[in-house]
């Protein structure tokens, strides 16, 4: 049709008459699934789900039919997943799809399935509005026969065009949280679509009455909802709406003006969600003009995406058929009043979308250009410098902690009290990324254990654990001249994550098959592990972890098998508060706890063995100081801004 020739600039089109633009956009909403989704209040999700599903089922299958010229490119470019594929047999598939839809709803209490099975749409699944659903069902069944006869004899092909351009009937229920029409139409549309339907718009005209009457009969049931919808939302009407919609009201009959209310006000909550307090008042005021323009600008590409999804690719004016065809029909069965309401629905729908476009633009546009991440740059530079200075420049020296945390004495005495000769199980359960922290924190403990000459057996429930264990243990062992497989060995990776912890606790020797970096064969045959058959044969269990979850699992799942052996946790600073309850409980499940660099430094001081922890101390101190500075400034700034805003309001 000509609409492709005269784009948005043209108000009128030689063929389609003067309502080219509004209809052009009229097409968009009803052709976009989103519009089906939008209008029912969020409370009505299942209905719009069902509608969305039904309305679009056909169109969703169409892409294969669009001419090569049509840009479905963006999709395929983005993603293999959205590249349309499948042959012209989409109709067949669609019918089957429809039938598939008649399954029992998913995710229900089992005994409902029986009841819900015959439902034509999964709507009842949601356990809502069974009343209207019954009605719809009745309608849907009633319609099918009526439509079929004229459809099949007279119009072999019109199915495709109509189906591709869900005209008033589909679009009208969109405004109403009730899907009868949409339920009805696709049913008969899909029900008897000839396998080979080339997109032929012409037959569309005569085919109108049949479904139009249907939609009428449908909409009669819904009339009461129209005022409801308007009233609901007119309340939240922003003052700017007039100029907002001025351009349109030029194009549309004056009755439109009263209709401008619902769409404008429709997503008030949406607005608050979109740009919360980011738009200053003046910008808010300016918004409509510019954003309306922006909508117009983006319209063509929007249309394209829509067309790409239709077999009527290129027939942008198709929806135009609605008002043009419909008006002569008005006199038919009480259609007059109805017809108007339908167009009102359609127009309101259009405005709805316009406003939503605006919101999206208003959200995206101003911010997108607005601020380069200056704050992030500043923070990055400050933190990097602060953390690096002590390293490169020797930097400011922070005083080492004098007093030792209470739990450090407990931990050290645990290590000193560990039975000599019995191996200690050290579980490395942290991401490689945290090696920087936990190697510094756990270093002194490993050092202490090796001081006591306790053989170490490492384990990990993460695939990347064994190399991390090797990193740390080998490093410390080198200092003590400890020999691999005699003073320490790696049991390797315990697969299965938290689940496997229990398996290991119950029967260690059956949970781990092969060591890591060992001579091969079962590590349990090594002399240092020969006497180990159960978890309690380890003199002590040390868990080095960042995750509160894994820490909880070790604390809880291994309890029964530890038989009183101490469980020690070396924790990333963030995880400590979550594990402390296990440590401080009246019957503690964790006997020792070591967390945070200060504790590690104190440990090193206690052992009089300066190590990794102390080399990090100054950088840690300066970096943390920088962070504290930012947080304080942020807090003050936030409060001030808050107070000022409060005054203003």
């Amino acid at each position: 049709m000509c609409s492709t020739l005269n784009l948005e600039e043209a108000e009128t089109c030689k063929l389609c008459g003067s309502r080219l633009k509004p209809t052009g956009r009229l097409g968009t909403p009803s052709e976009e699934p989103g519009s089906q989704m939008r209008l029912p209040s969020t409370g009505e999700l299942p209905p719009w789900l069902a509608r969305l599903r039904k309305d679009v089922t056909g169109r969703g299958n169409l892409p294969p039919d669009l001419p090569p010229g049509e840009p479905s490119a963006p999709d395929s470019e983005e993603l293999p997943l959205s590249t349309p594929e499948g042959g012209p047999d989409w109709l067949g598939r669609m019918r089957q799809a429809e039938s598939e839809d008649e399954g029992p709803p998913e995710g229900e209490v089992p005994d409902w399935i029986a009841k819900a099975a015959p439902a034509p749409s999964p709507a009842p699944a949601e356990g809502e509005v069974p009343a209207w659903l019954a009605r719809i069902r009745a309608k849907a069944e009633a319609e099918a026969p009526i439509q079929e006869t004229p459809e099949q004899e007279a119009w072999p092909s019109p199915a495709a065009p109509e189906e591709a351009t869900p005209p008033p009937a589909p679009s009208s229920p969109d405004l109403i949280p009730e899907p009868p029409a949409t339920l009805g139409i696709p049913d008969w549309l899909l029900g008897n679509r000839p396998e080979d339907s080339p997109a032929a718009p012409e037959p569309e005209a005569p085919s109108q009455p049949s479904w139009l009457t249907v939609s009428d009969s449908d909409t009669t049931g819904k009339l009461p909802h129209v005022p409801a919808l308007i009233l609901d939302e007119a309340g939240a009407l922003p003052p700017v709406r007039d100029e907002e919609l001025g351009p349109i009201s030029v194009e549309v009959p004056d009755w439109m003006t009263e209709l401008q209310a619902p769409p404008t006000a429709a997503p008030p909550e949406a607005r608050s969600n979109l740009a919360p307090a980011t738009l200053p008042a003046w910008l808010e005021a300016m918004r409509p003009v510019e954003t309306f323009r922006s909508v117009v600008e983006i319209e063509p590409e929007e249309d394209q995406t829509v067309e790409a999804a239709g077999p009527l690719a290129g027939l942008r004016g198709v929806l135009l058929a609605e008002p043009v065809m419909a008006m002569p029909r008005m006199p038919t069965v009480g259609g007059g009043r109805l017809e108007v309401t339908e167009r009102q629905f359609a127009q309101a729908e259009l405005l709805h979308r316009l406003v939503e476009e605006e919101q999206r633009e208003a959200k995206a546009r101003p911010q997108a250009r607005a601020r380069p991440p200056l704050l992030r740059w500043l923070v990055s530079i400050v933190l990097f410098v602060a953390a690096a200075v002590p390293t490169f420049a020797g930097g400011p020296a922070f005083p080492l902690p004098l007093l030792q945390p209470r739990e450090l004495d407990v931990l050290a005495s645990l290590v000193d009290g560990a039975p000599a000769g019995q191996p200690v199980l050290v579980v490395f359960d942290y991401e490689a990324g945290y090696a920087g922290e936990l190697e510094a924190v756990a270093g002194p403990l490993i050092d202490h254990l090796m001081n006591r000459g306790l053989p170490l057996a490492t384990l990990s429930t993460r695939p990347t654990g064994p190399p991390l264990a090797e990193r740390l243990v080998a490093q410390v062992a080198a200092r003590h001249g400890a020999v691999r497989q005699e003073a320490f060995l790696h049991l390797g990776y315990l697969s299965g994550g938290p689940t496997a912890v229990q398996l290991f606790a119950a029967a260690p020797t059956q949970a781990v098959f092969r060591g890591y970096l060992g001579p091969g064969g079962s590590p349990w045959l090594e002399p240092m592990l020969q006497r180990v058959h159960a978890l309690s044969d380890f003199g002590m269990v040390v868990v080095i972890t960042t995750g509160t979850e894994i820490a909880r699992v070790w604390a809880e799942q291994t309890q029964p098998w530890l038989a009183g052996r101490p469980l020690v946790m070396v924790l990333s600073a963030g995880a400590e508060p979550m594990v402390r309850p296990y440590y401080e409980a009246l019957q503690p499940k964790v006997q020792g706890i070591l967390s945070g660099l200060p504790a590690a430094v104190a440990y090193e001081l206690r052992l009089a063995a300066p190590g990794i922890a102390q080399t990090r101390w100054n950088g840690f101190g300066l970096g943390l100081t920088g962070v504290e500075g930012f947080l304080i400034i942020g807090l003050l700034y936030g409060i001030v801004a808050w107070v000022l805003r409060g005054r203003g309001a």
Partner: protein
Amino acid sequence: MTVQDWLTMAVLLALAAALVVLALAERRWPTKLRRVAAFAALDSAIERAVEAGERVHLSLGTGSLIGSDCAPALAGAMALAKIAEATTMSDRPVVASAGDGALAVLAQDALRGAYARTGAKEHYRATTGRMLGPTPFSYAAALPVILSSEKVSVHLLIGSFGAEGALAAEMGERQRAYVLAGSDDIQTQALFFTTAEHVLVGEEVFVSGAYLQGTAMQRASLRLQDLVRLALVAAILAGTILATLGVAL
């Protein structure tokens, strides 16, 4: 079987029975959901994304499917199915990702099911459910690309996350997407509290299904949670009094 075993068993059965009963009661006494700020805008955000031809991305997290950290992922999979039903037909259907193979398979199953239910089986692509990386941070490292190349405007994190979750959420914020983040790991929730626009606190991560117009049982389970929580509070208070009186528990 000790007494405690029987006790635990009884509690479990009671919970299950209560859940079923409440679910059946849903039809007559539908659950009134309280306002959870994070969910308030979710529906419209998804709708807008579909209308704008932008993509909804849901992450099932970096936990495991067979471990004790699978619960939020299970909840996320249900939410995924719901969202998929809404977006199968859009130009850009929802895409799900996970940091674990089994979870990716779960996501694919959830998506396939949703596509089948919406009669769009043919549109399902196995690549809509992806494993981005097998380790938490490799998963996070893969996110920026999927977020930008798929034009993601709704970025949902409903699964078990560690600290990498903070990166994942912040990447969504950089994209100026609608970011809703929840995890069963409380430390991660603390990080989400700052990095995510909408954060699911505590157990809210498990109720996403119900707030997405979930099934009767999903909604009923909220009631059950409230009841049990009340019972817990009562038990704690009573236990405290008993403990104070010196009664050994």
